[in-house]
């Protein structure tokens, strides 16, 4: 074998080696990610399921170091806040999304709005809590479920806006043109044709927003606060799962920590369930 051939061989061997090392590293990165996911989920399932029984849905949060008790007040409070947040943020977000996709394609203001919405998607949620505190709670002089709802809505709206806009943009322009050719006005086209065609995509956005806010804790600390007792009064402090989990997990009492695990499992199952539902919804749409 000539000298040049040998050199070439060793060069190829070296390149192959580098490639091999890089691929191994990349695979181990993936493995680390998956190990973390499985680790978190398995811990959550083991500790959570042992804490969950029927009484968790029937009783309200107990006193420290006592027997029994559940999370009923927190579950109801969370459902009420997330539910009313959906009713506020879905119409507002969808309307804004329609504007950005149908009316504001070329306007300067719309592109600024788009940019700001993108930034608000990742804005620190605790700051939104501070804002709602100074706007609502400080004025009303008391914490309330409504202020929690407002804080959650402010977090949900950007999510709905961005997904709605992206989904509407996927609808082919020919559909719009066909409707215009029949003499339909722009608002009818946007609302009854484009929005309807993008229905499952828009639903996906709303569900993703719900999933996002149902685990949010930080903004609720300063707005809805917490309530030891069962209450459905949105004008008073309202118990909710995330804040209960936070307070109970940080406490030294075993029964509280145990309930915190149960609550964590409930929240995670809800969030992951919603995420999986959105995927099914959206993949159905792609096939059809």
């Amino acid at each position: 074998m000539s000298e040049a051939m040998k050199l070439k061989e060793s060069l190829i061997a070296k390149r192959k080696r580098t490639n091999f090392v890089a691929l191994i590293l990349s695979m181990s990165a993936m493995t680390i990610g998956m190990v973390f996911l499985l680790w978190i989920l398995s811990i959550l399932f083991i500790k959570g399921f042992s804490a969950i029984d029927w009484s968790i849905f029937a009783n309200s949060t107990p006193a420290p170091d006592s027997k029994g008790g559940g999370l009923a007040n927190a579950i109801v409070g969370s459902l009420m806040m997330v539910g009313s947040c959906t009713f506020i943020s879905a119409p507002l977000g969808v309307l804004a999304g329609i504007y950005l996709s149908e009316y504001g394609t070329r306007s300067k203001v719309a592109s600024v709005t788009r940019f700001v919405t993108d930034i608000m998607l990742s804005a620190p949620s605790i700051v939104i809590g501070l804002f709602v505190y100074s706007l609502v709670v400080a004025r009303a002089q008391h914490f309330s479920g409504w202020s929690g709802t407002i804080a959650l809505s402010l977090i949900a709206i950007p999510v709905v806006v961005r997904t709605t806009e992206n989904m509407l943009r996927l609808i082919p322009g020919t559909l719009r043109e066909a409707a215009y050719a029949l003499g339909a006005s722009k608002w009818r086209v946007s609302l009854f044709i484009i929005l309807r065609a993008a229905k499952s995509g828009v639903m996906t956005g709303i569900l993703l927003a719900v999933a996002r806010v149902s685990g949010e804790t930080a903004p609720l600390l300063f707005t809805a606060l917490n309530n030891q007792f069962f209450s459905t009064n949105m004008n008073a402090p309202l118990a909710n799962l995330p804040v209960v989990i936070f307070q109970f997990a940080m406490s030294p009492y075993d029964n509280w920590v145990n309930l915190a695990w149960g609550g964590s499992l409930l929240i995670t199952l809800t969030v992951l369930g919603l995420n999986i539902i959105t995927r099914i919804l959206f993949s159905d749409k792609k096939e059809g």
Partner: protein
Amino acid sequence: MESSLTSEQKKINAAKISKREKIFEFIFFRTSQASSMFVLVVLLGIFLSLLINAWPSFKEFGFGFFFSPEWNITKNKFGGLIGIYGTVISSFIALLIATPLSFGIALFLTEICPMVLRRPLGIAVELLAAIPSIIYGMFGLFVFSPIFADYVEPFLQATLGHIPGVGILFSGGGNGIGVLCAGLILAMMILPFISAVMRDVFLIVPPVLKESAYGIGCTTWEVSRFVVLPYTKNGLIGGIMLGLGRALGETMAVTFVIGNAQRIQPSLFAPGSSIASTLANQFGEASPGLHFSSLFALGLTLFIITLIVLTLAKLMLIRMQKNEGASS
């Protein structure tokens, strides 16, 4: 039916309908426009309300607020340096760990992974991103930090702790709760987030580019390093900075594991505080006055820092998309 209407009547009808449609159109246009403006108004509102509430503190401590490491509730002296330090250091640790891992995951998902597994593994990564941060916090407090204290801290102390200069970062130690632990939990949190952005960015690379590189005999690593990486540089940096934005503002995961001590210590094992954890712990008990106002000042600082980071990230990602348009 048609013939029963005279052309005159038809015209009147058409005019009526067109007038009605115009009114509806106007209403719909304005409401949808107003709702899209809503987000802008909220951003301005947040800024103004934080500024107004933080003003007494800024007036009292001036610009020095950002550089004073004193946070003393009894003496009524407040400075933001402890929180800023904790926030920046924990986020920096998180990025240091999450960036290479995310790159590896994104590379795996786009280049190496068999086609059948791509979708399920991609979804798994996205699910990891969907887990609420409070779960990461609990996991960190109850599961991760004990392991961290028993195995990782002694190991780091025995190895890196002896290097002069760096050693001080790994001195002390104890129960596993501290700045480094917070950084690690943050890294786990932003890992799927950055990976997802990076994967999407990698998918933008035109297949022709990659195929031609493979065609002249490049290995997978060479294609990734010399074709994909340069092509997606701006997008990658954008993705990393989006992750940084998330890490800076993260509250719950950090509050559980950072230790919430109002001091700055050289050791990464020592407990500290981030801006968000200080707010979460103290805001509920703060009495109106300087303490209250200083917490708002911290919030404003956090808001501005994250806004700058996120804006830069978005600009990077937009620039990348523009480049893509120009080159194709």
